């Protein structure tokens, strides 16, 4: 009963258009008062602070800062140039550039939303000039940005790891192969759809010289993911510390190699923008701390576990059920809050059933990410649609094949847990 009230109020407040963080905190507060949980209201500030008070979670602001610094350093342009040199000769080349650019961007930045914005603002106008339809351009930009949170670094893995006590470093490593598989499937779909729609039938010829020129700039940008993965693989530092390493590398690239970041004002601008983005995410995590506490007091996790094990105790069946439920919720809740709300209870269920924690983590994050490209509420769709100036409804048709690609990737990942577990178990194995 109280649970119904809690979720009912949450959905109600969300629909009213309140900030997600406020809706989450307020619905929890309302249940504390209305259902008389017999707790003092100091629990509200107490849990909201406790929700954020985690060193592991601080990788979120660090990776967001690194990404912001990278963008200001001109890494995005260099990645697009390299992608163009690599796949610009394929038919429907800009669709391929968009996809390959997303994969490369994924290795640099921690956030799919940032990838959508960075690549979209450059590529969508370019695609429009070459005759692509705007809805298609926005759709492919949003859909391929889902690779971002799967290939490390990833803010979503940090969130998942710190909420479920799973090693963030291992999750990063677990995401590499699934991310690449997604990339390949998305490239195939981009190829087929661009051809079918007759976009860019006569691409520019392949040029080794152009590739050579682009590779130099691209290589410096590619250093970033290499350093991140190497730092985790060699045990140089924990995920949060690697976030700081990424910040320093980005700073160095911006100041020295690319010479784009100049002056104190530009730097503080970058820090400010990154802190704003972090605040939007971390404040949701903070109020979710209160929400989770109320859920625990109402024994939500126990009833969920009971309900799930009442249906089946086969780990794969349960995993598929979890995925379907998350896909459904993901239509209405954006990726980050979705993950924040369900990571811990899902991990408890997975643990009880003996699912591999890393495999489960990647599956859950990928599923939540798909929520970012499903209407009516999808963060990446909103960003890409905003850049392309197309309504969400127009993006649905061109999105269909990409949804197919993402669901296929998810199915492959569920069927082959080794995709997630192989690289982490290689380390020190």
């Amino acid at each position, binding site marked *: 009963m109280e649970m119904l009230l809690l979720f009912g109020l949450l959905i109600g407040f969300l629909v009213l258009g309140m900030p997600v963080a406020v809706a989450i905190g307020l619905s929890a507060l309302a249940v504390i008062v209305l259902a008389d949980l017999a707790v003092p209201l100091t629990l509200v500030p107490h849990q909201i602070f*406790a929700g954020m008070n985690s060193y*592991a979670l601080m990788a979120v602001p660090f990776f967001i800062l690194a990404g912001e610094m990278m963008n200001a350093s001109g890494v995005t342009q260099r990645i697009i140039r390299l992608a163009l040199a690599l796949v610009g000769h394929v038919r429907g080349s800009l669709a391929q550039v968009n996809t390959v650019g997303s994969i490369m961007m994924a290795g640099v930045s921690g956030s799919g939303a940032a990838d959508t914005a960075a690549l979209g603002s450059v590529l969508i106008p370019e695609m429009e000039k070459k005759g692509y339809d705007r809805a298609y351009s926005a759709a492919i930009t949003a859909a391929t940005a889902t690779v971002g949170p799967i290939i490390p670094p990833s803010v979503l893995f940090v969130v998942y790891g*710190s909420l479920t*006590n799973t*090693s963030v470093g*291992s999750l990063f490593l677990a995401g590499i192969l699934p991310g690449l598989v997604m990339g390949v499937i998305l490239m195939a779909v981009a190829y087929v759809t661009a051809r079918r729609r007759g976009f860019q039938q006569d691409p520019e010829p392949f040029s080794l010289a152009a590739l050579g020129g682009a590779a130099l700039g691209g290589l410096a940008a590619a250093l970033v993911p290499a350093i991140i993965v190497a730092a985790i693989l060699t045990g*140089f530092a924990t995920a949060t510390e690697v976030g700081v390493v990424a910040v320093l590398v980005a700073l160095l690239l911006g100041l020295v190699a690319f010479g784009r970041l100049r002056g104190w004002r530009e730097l503080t601008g970058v820090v400010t923008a990154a802190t704003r983005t972090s605040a939007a995410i971390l404040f949701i995590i903070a109020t979710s701390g209160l929400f989770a*506490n109320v859920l*625990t*007091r109402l024994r939500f996790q126990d009833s969920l576990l009971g309900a799930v094990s009442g249906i089946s105790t086969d780990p794969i069946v349960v995993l598929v059920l979890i995925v379907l439920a998350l896909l459904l919720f993901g239509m209405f809740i954006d990726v980050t809050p979705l993950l924040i709300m369900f990571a811990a209870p899902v991990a408890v269920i997975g643990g009880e059933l003996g699912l591999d924690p890393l495999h489960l983590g990647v599956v859950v994050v990928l599923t939540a990410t798909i929520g970012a490209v499903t209407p009516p509420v999808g963060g990446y769709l909103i960003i890409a649609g905003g850049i392309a100036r197309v309504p969400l409804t127009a993006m649905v048709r061109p999105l269909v094949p990409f949804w197919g690609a993402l669901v296929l990737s998810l199915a492959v990942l569920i069927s082959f847990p080794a995709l997630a577990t192989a690289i982490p178990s290689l380390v020190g194995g």
Partner: protein
Amino acid sequence: GSPAGGEEPLVIRYGNIYPASTTFGKAVDRMAELVEERSDGAVRMDVFHSGALGSEQVHIEGVREGSLEMAHTGTAGIALFVPETALFEQWYAFDDLDQLARAFDDATPLLERMYADKGFTLLGTFYNGPRTLISTSPIRSLDDVQGKQLRVPGSDLYVRMANGLGARGVSMPLGDAFTGLQTGTIDALEGSPDDLRSGGYGSVAPYLTLDEHVYHPLSIVYGRDAWEALAPEQRELVQAAVDEVSAEQRAALEQANVDALTELEEDGVEIIEITDREAWADRVAPTSAGFAQRFGPDGQRIVEILDAAGRP
């Protein structure tokens, strides 16, 4: 059962930061059973295991504000309010659990007053330990531990003690410890054999050194205001249950450690006994002395009690 007299039962919320399967979890479940049975359902315990309500710090703050009634707590909890309790966790202060138990009993009247000053009622204690080292390369002597990156809980005392020993105390989140051992960010981790077994660290760190650096109390506390609001017979009921299960937990702990060591050994972990524990203790003595100095008269009184009960 239905509450006697048809009134709403008194609900006591108990937060347990350890899993239900540990000696602590079982003891608390037993406590809940006893209380409910003996009160004929008039008093009920609502137990939250596995730190479902948050960290140890969140638990103790919850008891203080009244969003929880009860919890058991050590350095990461009660010591944040009563810093002197950390003195019990100075390394190599005790040779066995009996010494610690004697010290805690002797200090109880003093602790009761100190806890009450900060808003807590001390009802009894569980015990944990001995804490041991699990490492990626064998630690057989004091020399072997020098310069090792040793993960300790995020506590000033533990970092100082690890550094005092000659290791380098690293306070990384426990969630990162497994990968940390795997990749070499850290070389060793410490905890009771049962903690280390349930964490599954043996697969990446196959050496367990029985240096037994800490035996420690986990004070069972009740919020002072909530305690004073209870009827005398309710207090008696809870106190009796605490006394009974805490004695059982102490016996269960020793068995759990034996079982854990056996299981670790079966999983291929080498169990190492050290012969130079005297030298380890001497090495940290200055750190302990320096740590004790920061406290006032109450702290010095506890130091005296520890010295009387513990190792000479």
